[in-house]
């Protein structure tokens, strides 16, 4: 290790021009301590990542647990995660729009349209198989995203207005399809299982181990590649620590889910819907972090003119982002209907979309574009579900829940603003 440092610091010493303002390039850290110190410098510099919201979530959990001992029981925590699924999915979709510096107000009722299409097609009188019904619903929502995205990017209309119109329009479409009955029951077992079935205990463990193994292999390969390329990379010990942490977290989650949480009959196992949220999270994290498309979404959100000069096709990237936003909302709609085993006019797409924007922002995504992650949507969704759940346990009314959610939203934005003030020249 000390050889590596030696080899890397030598060229710096030879560089010409060291006379002017030069502090020298930072030498590569040669130890865990140095890497952690570099990370700490970044955090202090305002690149806090998800730390504030995770801390906030812990704080909220402790407060609720003090007030009501039922909050941190296995059963309630798993329920909370399931309740969070719809918020998290909608918020992950919203992140695509927010990253561009745009907004999608329609996604709540786009989810409703998705649910209605799926429920309608899966009715015994229509008789489509479950997968065809879901696929059609998702294709339809993706198409909605393309239409709205095209209006925004090709004609240049503000996304706020287009998706506000979308909010009204798709609510109308949903009500129209629901018709006089006002509700469609879902009798297809597979569709209902999405929202309410659980893996068996053994399968839960196997799935968790497979996921951690994939994550571990990816993380190890990436960190090793960076070390080989002599770039700033976590030392092997820290990589192993990361993988171990993922394994422990996974094991904890499976243990939590495998505990009996039934009231009358035993209920246990990892809910399918948690797996679904993880799958969508992994997919969108990959798309945003590892593909050109994702890079361009960030670039457009940061400086659209610079992106245009770099030869990026703004129209295509923006439209695709709106498509992915609506598609994710479509997935949320499938989960929503599946949990209720029906879809009715009671779906409040307006509140859902506002919650999803709040969730994304609480998670750490900027409303001004260019900063955000799919993960923010998931964590923000969990925070909102935790407030809803915890206050419900304490017997508070809906009124109080709204007020507290609003305060948490404001606190989250304030923490973000204060943290970013530490940046030398911030956006």
């Amino acid at each position, binding site marked *: 290790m000390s050889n590596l440092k030696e080899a890397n610091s030598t060229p710096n010493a030879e560089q010409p021009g060291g006379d002017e303002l030069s502090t020298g390039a930072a030498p590569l850290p040669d130890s865990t301590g140095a890497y952690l110190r570099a990370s700490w410098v970044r955090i202090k510099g305002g690149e806090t990542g998800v730390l504030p919201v995770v801390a906030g979530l812990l704080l909220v959990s402790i407060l609720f647990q003090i007030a009501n001992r039922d909050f941190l029981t296995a059963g309630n925590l798993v329920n909370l995660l399931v309740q969070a699924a719809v918020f998290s999915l909608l918020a992950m979709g919203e992140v695509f729009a927010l990253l561009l510096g745009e907004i999608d107000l329609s996604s709540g009722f786009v989810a409703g349209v998705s649910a209605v299409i799926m429920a309608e097609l899966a009715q015994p009188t229509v008789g489509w198989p479950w997968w065809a019904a879901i696929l059609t619903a998702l294709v339809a929502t993706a198409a909605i995203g393309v239409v709205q995205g095209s209006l925004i990017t090709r004609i240049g209309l503000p996304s706020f207005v287009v998706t506000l119109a979308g909010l009204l329009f798709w609510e109308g479409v949903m009500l129209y399809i629901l018709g006089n009955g006002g509700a469609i029951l879902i009798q297809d077992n597979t569709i209902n299982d999405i929202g309410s079935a659980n893996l068996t205990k053994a399968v839960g463990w196997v799935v968790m181990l497979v996921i951690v193994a994939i994550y571990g292999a990816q993380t190890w390969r990436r960190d090793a590649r960076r070390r080989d390329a002599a770039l700033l990379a976590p030392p092997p010990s820290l990589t192993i620590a990361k993988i171990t942490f993922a394994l422990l977290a996974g094991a904890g989650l499976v243990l939590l889910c495998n505990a009996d949480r039934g009231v009358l009959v035993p209920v246990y196992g990892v809910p399918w819907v948690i797996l679904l949220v993880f799958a969508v999270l992994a997919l969108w994290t990959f798309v945003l972090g590892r593909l050109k498309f994702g890079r361009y979404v960030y670039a457009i959100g940061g400086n659209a003119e*610079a992106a245009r000069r770099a030869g990026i096709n703004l129209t295509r990237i923006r439209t695709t982002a709106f498509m992915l936003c609506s598609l994710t909302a479509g997935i949320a709609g499938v989960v929503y209907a599946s949990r209720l085993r029906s879809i009715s006019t009671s779906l409040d797409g307006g509140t859902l979309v506002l919650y999803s924007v709040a969730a994304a922002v609480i998670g750490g995504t900027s409303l001004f574009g260019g900063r955000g992650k799919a993960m923010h949507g998931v964590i923000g969704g969990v925070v909102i579900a935790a407030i809803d759940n915890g206050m419900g346990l304490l017997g508070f009314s809906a009124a109080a829940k709204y007020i507290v959610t609003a305060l948490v939203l404001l606190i989250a934005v304030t923490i973000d603003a204060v943290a970013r003030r530490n940046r030398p020249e911030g956006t």
Partner: protein
Amino acid sequence: MTAITEGTGPASPADDEELPLLRLRGVSKHFGPVNALTEVDLDIRAGQVTALAGDNGAGKSVMIKTISGIHPPDGGKMWWGGKPMRVHSPGEAATLGIETVYQDLALCDNLDIVQNMFLGRERMHRGQLDEESMENAARETLTSLAVTTVRSVRQPVASLSGGQRQSVAIAKAVLWNSKLVIMDEPTAALGVAQTAMVLALVRRLADRGHAVMLVSHNMNDVFEVADRIAVLRLGRMVAERPAAEMDRQIVVDLMTTGVSTRVAQPRPSAE
């Protein structure tokens, strides 16, 4: 300048010296009734800093945009490395090796240095972004330009000083084997130390063999780094001479009146 092809040189008068990298003869550009450029002649040589001076509205920006493909000329001819050149888009200009650093730098504040330098031209590895290769290339380029003041190439551009941002924008232009780097007022928003840093970088670019076209109306900057000075006035090229044959007053006279009766004082060499 090894890329010159023998015998294909332009049949232009006074072609008595080494072929320039870029040669403009009689280039004109008008927007409706407004003549932005009129019969402009200019030579830009590799390994030299050519300063383009001129008052506001003299046509400096149009000149940049004409060369970089944003506004193709209406008349006149351009040669690139001795061959007739036609560019109709910034992409075509980039393919030839012409990169422009605009005054606003066109950087994404939320992206880090590596991401900015490779924006739009990312390297891929098995369908995914090849971060390692890009990071190494970015670091090598910055090191070769002696830009050593940045803490990490992975820090967001928002956290850089004005001079560092300018350096990143210049390094971004150099990354692509560019032969000509056009810079629009690179020091306009910088303090004294930062200006010195950027001017030193401009000089190094030329010393590495790049042709540099520096647009500026800061006479200090111009005389600090320029080998040749071209002066535009109302869309016409009123003078194009070695910097050593000019002084501040001559350039200001040329910029404002188009002529100068002053005879250049033999100046001590710029460096």
